[in-house]
């Protein structure tokens, strides 16, 4: 059941330059939400809503967390909201990540602003999760303390080596695979990163889910604008990120050449 409403922001933090973390009190949504789902957030003065992943869910407090980067005018407007303000959202949307049984091991990989949705899913695995996140540089690093607090094995990469190891998240993943084979890999980030992770997982026979992005209008599956190419049984067809996704089994995604 989708909910639309104006909900109060109960806390707001700046995680890095231009990256904001808001916690919204919306008990019905928090109750229904799963890791990997998203919210359609209204930016005042703009016609279309902005899709933002649900970073974390606190069912007890009745809150969800959205972590987003200012990328354009709409997210800039959303970033002007403060504690106590109401934010108009539709949520929870999309399918969310598949959660395996207790005891299974997961690797959660976030690239840049693809990192936030990893919080919710890594939480499901706690100490059984390895979280690999990649950022441009030390100044862009976010959410590492959250992952540590959940007991995850945290591996940080930066492009320039200014924090954690220098290099790509795929390098870190290959290293992890040397010592253990996880039951599932979750990934969110740039297409090229998802493509490479998909390839690695395929080669290693690991089940992998990726969270995709596409420009959206309705966010619920009605307007068909948020198309992505998928494949099943050798047959290519259009899926829709908002309803069929944003999470797809990586083997079903057709990555452009």
């Amino acid at each position: 059941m989708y909910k639309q409403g104006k909900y109060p922001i109960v806390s707001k933090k700046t995680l890095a330059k231009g990256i904001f973390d808001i916690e919204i009190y919306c008990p019905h949504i928090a109750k229904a939400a799963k890791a990997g789902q998203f919210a359609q957030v209204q930016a005042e003065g703009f016609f279309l809503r902005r899709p933002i992943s649900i970073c974390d869910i606190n069912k007890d407090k009745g809150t969800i967390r959205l972590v987003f980067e200012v990328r354009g005018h709409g997210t800039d407007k959303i970033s002007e909201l403060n504690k106590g303000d109401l934010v108009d959202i539709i949520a929870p949307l999309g399918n969310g990540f598949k959660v395996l049984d207790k005891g299974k091991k997961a690797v959660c990989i976030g690239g840049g602003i693809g990192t936030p949705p990893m919080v919710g899913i890594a939480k499901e695995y706690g100490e059984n999760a390895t979280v690999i996140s990649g950022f441009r540089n030390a100044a862009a690093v976010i959410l590492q303390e959250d992952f540590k607090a959940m007991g995850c094995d945290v591996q940080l990469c930066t492009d320039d080596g200014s924090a954690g190891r220098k290099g790509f998240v795929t390098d870190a993943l290959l290293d992890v695979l040397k010592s253990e084979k996880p039951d599932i890999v979750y990934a969110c980030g740039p297409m090229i990163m998802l493509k490479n992770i998909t390839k690695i997982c395929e080669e290693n026979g690991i089940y992998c889910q990726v969270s995709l992005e596409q420009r959206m209008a309705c966010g619920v599956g009605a307007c068909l604008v948020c198309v992505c190419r998928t494949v099943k049984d050798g047959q290519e067809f259009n899926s829709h990120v908002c309803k069929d996704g944003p999470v797809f089994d990586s083997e079903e995604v057709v990555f452009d050449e």
Partner: protein
Amino acid sequence: MNRINVNFCGVEFKNPVIPASGTFGYGREYEQFYPLSKLGGISVKGTTLHRREGNPGPRVAETPSGMLNSVGLQNGGVDKFINYELPNLVTKDTRIIANIAGSTIEECAELAEKLNGTAVDMIELNISCPNVKQGGAAFGTDCNVAGAVTKAVKDVTEKPLMVKLSPNVTSIVDIAKSVEANGADAVSLINTLLGMRIDIRTRRPILKNNVGGLSGPAVFPVAVRMVWQVANAVKIPVMGMGGIATWEDAIEMMMAGAGAVQVGAAIFADPYAPVKIAEGMQKFCEDNGINNISEIVGTVKPW
């Protein structure tokens, strides 16, 4: 007392507010917000003879007070509509308008024929889709072709036939007259205005299709003007749409001459828009001592 039920083209609608084709799918998604029985009807996603994959993405670009789309009539084909969507829709206690589009005149007629004997209440023949190469806008921008396709469909259909007009023309009145003369029972307007946006960083059009159809509040004044012109030029009823977002907009459109209205892009901003609009209209009637909303249709007094 329900003051907003309307008879449009012989079909009884419990209210004159209908989600516009392509913006509401077949209602399955929005049913999670409210029962579809709250709607006057639903104009379903454009249906073609065969399954269509539509255009590649991105298919949407934001614009000031509006949006461009280039979906390109993605749909499962008419058989899937009849066999899968329609049986579900008929249980929803709302009117069903089948929006159809063909790439040839024959295809349009064949589509209409297939819908004979189904529970569809009305046909909306889309001769104005800016996002497909054949048919679509090509049909809607030439009086003769528009007339011919109307006639071909009218000859075979047993349903009330509404023809959906393109605003991308020099004289929408001429097209409206032509489809009226060829047997259309109603016209609906406007479809989207052709537009474009460019990402100045990548120097690429935002839409993979380069251009797309503009809708949303931005186009409202153009739609009101066209509805007013057409309503004054034809005798058949006019279904008005284009940028309606509030009940005030809907009232304005009806005063311009629309017997009923469709609401499209506004639903993306507020899923409840059609319901709120219907409620606002009911209250407007009550507050102004209007027994039935139909009394306001075409009542604008030009200077």
